[in-house]
């Protein structure tokens, strides 16, 4: 598995065609996702599949459409760089020689903080998925930060690209590239509601199985993006307006944050859900649900916003040209 990964990586380095490189990067994402499954990191695998094999290549392709797929072949002192990189790699290999062996159960990471997560979290939090417990409760502030990172990126992209102009209906750009594929359109018309449903399932199932707000948000976004690709951005933007998305993205963060503030007002520390309701365990449940919802909303709307921004950049650059 890892060997495959390494080969893919080298192939990416070798390839000149950006399009192929992006595709390989997608495959690389899938491969690493399956590696994550093989080492029991199902949540991570799910996310990596959605991101590495989904959103990442999608964004890359959208950008490539604007930038062009051909790369120039001028390399900068490849030999020296190769040498440098190899030396550093060798030094690193030396540096890892006394690392705890792979999978050994008595390595320090497994015997300190993690013990409590594994042994106590089903009782303390009351949900089986320990990753969700840690993510949404023990270290929920990190997750708030993570949502804010997505929000920040969306804001950055917005500031950079978005002009606020929707493509005027009926213009040439209205018809998306894949508009002519009738079969695709019919199939996806049926598929998109399913995708959205699945997103909702992932959203609310996160406590029990792999999944949660982030994955759900990504999937939801993927559904909308698919719609946009097939039916044109103008149509998509009429269905889900960018202004609304901005508000939603902000609201998601605010929902998350206000849960924290409510906890604070009801006498606990920031994000201490046990204060939300008289029964601390139920309170935790509610807290986790609400913040996961916030995560989902922000991630979905941020991803769609980013995609819209890329799309509108396409439209604009075509108009300029």
């Amino acid at each position, binding site marked *: 598995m890892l060997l495959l990964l390494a080969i893919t990586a080298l192939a990416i380095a070798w390839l000149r065609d950006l399009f192929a490189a992006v595709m390989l990067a997608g495959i690389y994402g899938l491969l690493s996702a399956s590696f994550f499954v093989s080492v029991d990191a199902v949540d991570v695998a799910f996310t990596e599949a959605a991101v590495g094999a989904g959103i990442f290549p999608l964004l890359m392709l959208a950008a490539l459409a604007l930038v062009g797929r051909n790369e120039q072949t001028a390399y*900068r002192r490849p030999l020296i760089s190769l040498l*440098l990189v190899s*030396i550093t790699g060798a*030094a690193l290999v030396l*540096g890892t020689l006394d690392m705890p062996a792979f999978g050994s159960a008595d390595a320090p990471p497994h015997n300190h903080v993690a013990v409590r997560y594994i042994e106590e979290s089903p009782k303390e939090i009351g949900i089986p998925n320990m990753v969700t417990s840690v993510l949404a409760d023990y270290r929920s502030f990190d997750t708030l930060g993570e949502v804010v990172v997505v929000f920040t990126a969306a804001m950055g992209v917005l500031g950079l690209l978005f002009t606020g102009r929707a493509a005027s209906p009926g213009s040439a750009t209205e018809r998306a590239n894949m508009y002519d594929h009738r079969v695709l359109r019919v199939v996806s018309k049926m598929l998109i509601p399913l995708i959205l449903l699945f997103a909702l399932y992932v959203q609310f199932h996160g406590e029990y199985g792999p999944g949660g707000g982030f994955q759900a948000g990504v999937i939801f976004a993927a559904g909308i993006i698919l719609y946009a690709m097939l039916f044109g951005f103008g149509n998509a933007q009429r269905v889900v307006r960018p202004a609304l998305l901005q508000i939603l993205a902000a609201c998601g963060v605010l929902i998350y944050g206000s849960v924290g503030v409510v906890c604070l007002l009801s006498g606990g520390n920031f994000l201490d859900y046990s204060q939300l309701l008289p029964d601390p365990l139920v309170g935790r449940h509610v807290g986790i649900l609400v913040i996961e919802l916030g995560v989902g909303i922000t991630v979905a709307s941020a991803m769609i916003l980013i995609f819209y921004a890329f799309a509108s950049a396409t439209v604009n650059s075509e108009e300029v040209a």
Partner: protein
Amino acid sequence: MMPFELPPFLFFYLAGALVLFTSGTPRAVLMLLIPVVSAVNLWLTPEGSYGQLAFLDLQLTLHKVDRLSILFGYLFHIAALIAIIYSLHVRDRMQQGAAMFYAGSALGAVFAGDLLTLFVFWELLALTSVFLVWARRSERSYRVGMRYLIIQVLSGLLLLGGIILYSREADSLSFVEIGLHGVYGWLIFLAFGIKCAFPFFHNWLTDAYPESTPTGTVFLSAFTTKVAVYALARGYPGTELLVYIGAAMTCFPIFYAVIENDLRRVLAYSLINQLGFMVVGVGIGTALSINGAVAHAFTDVIFKGLLFMSMGAVLHMTGRINGSELGGLYKSMPKTTVLCIIGAASISAFPLFSGFVSKSMVMSAAIENDYPWIWLMLLFASAGVFHHAGIKIPYFAFFAHDAGIRTSEPPVNMLLAMTIAAALCVTIGIFPEVLYQLLPYDTGYNPYDATHVLAQTQLLFFSALAFVWLNLRHMYPPELPSVNLDAEWCYRRLAPSVLQRITGVVVAANTALRTSAAKLVAWVLAYISRHHGPDGLLARTWPTGSVVTWVVVLLAVYLSLSLF
């Protein structure tokens, strides 16, 4: 007694700030009032330390009054007042504001109770004074001011370095006798030396002072170097090295002064020469000699101020200052002429004039302490002074052949300032006790004994005779000021050619040294700009890859350093 213990610099700084925002009569009144108020304040301040202040982990004393500092305090007040009167007609906010700040800084430095405060005012002195040079607002004065500033700041940096070392060594910052011990002693010595225009560090003075405005030079001549003398008197009394340095300072400017055509530059050289007497006095280090040095500083400020003022008046009225272009001005500026002659008599140490009273103390101290050679040098220098400052200045400006310039007396305020200075010169000359009372030590010295008076008069008489004779024979041509003839007649034993050659060699060596230094600097600059200039290797915009390369390199280096 709170209100009477304010440090004097506060008054001047306040005045400086106000001057920037006022004009006309209020400004004039303000500028005149401030030194008076400040002087009264100083008069009422008993000796002691005031304005203690904790800075960093150090104890600072902003304001410390003792006998040495108070003498300079009075001196600077007098000088400031005279210079202010002299410059009342000037309508230039920047110049007058800077002058007030400058005088204030000098006072601050003199009353600084610790070295760090001294350093602060030392730098402020440099910063504020440079505006007086720039006030002439010409390209040349800008360049000169720049050089001046660099050297002054350098002196400050040396001082700071010395102070830091000193504070570690002595664990205190109070400004007491330092002496040439260790690196810090030398650093501080050098810093003081630069400001005091020691040989090889004197160029800033002769460079900058003649380039300032007519009024600016009067201020400049009073403060900077005297602060340095004060600092030397406090930090390095009795350092023998100073005797030799001082002696050199008295002699070498004479060569330059004699060949110089710009009369204010002549005065600048003679300023260095007078400083030499003070430095010798400090270096000998006995009560008498220190008294002499301090007293000479006192009188020098006034008579040198008077001379600069009279030359300033000439420049102000005629727009010319080169000896070769002037002459015959006594017809149109008789009062200025008389005042200038009083100044000339003082600097030449005529009995009954102030220079005699103070200079003779240093000379006596040199004899008493077995420095016969030094005494001889000082004697030679005295004669030289008489020649270039006492005779040359008034003669070429006001007499000599008539250059045909017809003008009038300078403005009343200028005349008034000069009159006050002249009156002081004469008063001190006749009643030296007034000055002696103020001196740090009580020595009961009497300048008017027969030997002194006789020796001095004899010297002066022969010099004058020589000059007159030369002139009658038309052998002292003002049109060719670079020909140096006077020394031959002062000291017949020295052949004129030898002297001329020495002068030539000194000047040539100096020039050669400077050009090669300039070349070196230019080369270094070119080298630096090749790499650091906007398109140089180190300033270029680099591609992302090379930035990352550095990351990798650093990572590898760190790793190998930490693993092996």
